[in-house]
């Protein structure tokens, strides 16, 4: 486990979200779908964020400023140093034959890095408004749907689905594509199994997302619903 104080290099708005670019330091970008714990300036706890882009010598994170921690991160000033721990957890398996990326809302966050590592596979993104859909600029060739159309209505059959988004979307994707890989989200204090705070109920059990996920197989999720 490696933790470093990384300098903020740049930050820009992407629709309602904020793309924060940090120097990479000695941290490994890890596998797409893994996450990092980012110090939220002035807050007690760090925040789990999956890596959005891994430009040379940088780590870039897409932040949805919805609470005090994510707002503190989104307003971090250039030159400020932020402690970053990671990479943590289990990312996506990349050995898939016909990948299709599926993202919902801020769930688009890990997909640009995943797309890069998979050589630019097709992608379908769903957003709740045109404003939120501006984030699709991060994945330029993706198909986009906006509510009231749901992303699950736009998933073609016959693909290996790699998804990230809100829990109802992930459960719907799991029913449509039992072989899918789903990146889950939960409040998390530590990111390495210590706090037991990030449990989600899947497979009929409460599982610590940080050590058993955040990427889970859809079969496991569907078992829970059965």
């Amino acid at each position, binding site marked *: 486990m490696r933790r470093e104080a990384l300098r903020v290099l740049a930050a820009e708005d992407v629709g309602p979200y904020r793309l924060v670019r940090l120097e990479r330091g000695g941290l490994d970008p890890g596998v797409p779908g893994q996450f990092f714990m980012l110090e939220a300036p002035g807050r*007690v706890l760090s925040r789990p964020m999956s890596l959005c882009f891994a430009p040379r010598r940088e780590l870039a994170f897409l932040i949805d400023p919805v609470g005090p921690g994510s707002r503190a991160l989104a307003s971090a000033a250039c030159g400020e140093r932020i402690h970053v721990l990671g990479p943590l957890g289990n990312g996506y398996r990349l050995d898939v034959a016909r990948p299709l990326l599926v993202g919902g809302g801020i769930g688009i966050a890990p997909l640009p890095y995943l797309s890069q590592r998979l050589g630019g596979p097709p992608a379908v993104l769903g957003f709740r408004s045109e404003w939120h859909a501006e984030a699709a600029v991060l994945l330029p060739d993706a198909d986009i749907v906006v509510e009231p159309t749901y992303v699950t209505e736009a998933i073609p059959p016959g693909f290996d689905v790699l998804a990230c988004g809100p829990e109802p979307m992930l459960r719907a994707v799991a029913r449509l594509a039992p072989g899918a890989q789903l990146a889950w989200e939960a409040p998390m204090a530590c990111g390495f199994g*210590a706090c037991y705070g990030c449990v989600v109920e899947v497979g009929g059990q409460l599982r610590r997302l940080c050590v058993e996920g955040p990427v889970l197989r859809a079969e496991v999720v569907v078992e829970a619903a059965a």
Partner: protein
Amino acid sequence: MTILNASGCLDALTAPEVARSLDAFVTKTVTPLVRVGNAPVRIAETDHGMLNSIGLANPGIDRFLAEHLPRLAELGVPIWVSVGGFSAADYADLCARLGERPEIAVLELNVSCPNVAEPAESAAEIVRAARAETSKPLYAKLSPAVPDVGAVASAAAGAGADGLTLVNTIRGLVLDERTLRPVLSTAAGGYSGPALRPIALAAVLAAYRASGLPIVGVGGVETGRHALEFIVCGASAVALGTVLFTDPGAPERVRAELAAEAAALGLANPLDARGIALTGGLDSLPRLTKYVN
């Protein structure tokens, strides 16, 4: 100077390198039967601390002894086992079984979890029941949320406790800023972190004055300076809790910072400052008095 983790704030099997950086590892509380714990949401941040409502999730004593303890013993760090139950008899049974295991250095009686139903018996009655079943060192982990911490500490000492751990979390509640619903599934949970520190210092001082026992100080320790403050109030060791979640390197950092704090005061050992809050602070240290005069 001994630095431990607070029970429930580190899983030595998922972060063994952090456990090895401690002087002893304290397990998550073990109960008679398996507990899946409370439903999510289990944690919430506040401006100055965090709430948790994990609900003593653990594998139960049978699986702990068969599967977890042998793996913990391989870490090469002294193991303290935190023990929890719902009656004095539960604690006695658990201590009888755990007491037979040479891998265990200390048994810490968690008599103060704010997230589960409390046993009917007092802390002292639980200590007495456990004491009758084991010769292992017994520490009682106490709550600060009582009218007289000193009296509870003194009673625990009289019942045979070898040491005390102060403090456990205290009950708190936080609301979601948009919905105004409690964030935690159980509404209230255990409050920890920086906000707990002054409360813990007061409890440690009261317990030190009343009992004279070794004390593990816990509650918002983030730096070597904080550790020194706990020693000054009577702690003989400190445990790190919430800070481990954000900084798993905290044990080594706090150890180095504490050494620097002690050196700056001219102390050969940080524990030379133990309890000086009761006797006038730095003025009561002979070397410094001489220097100041």
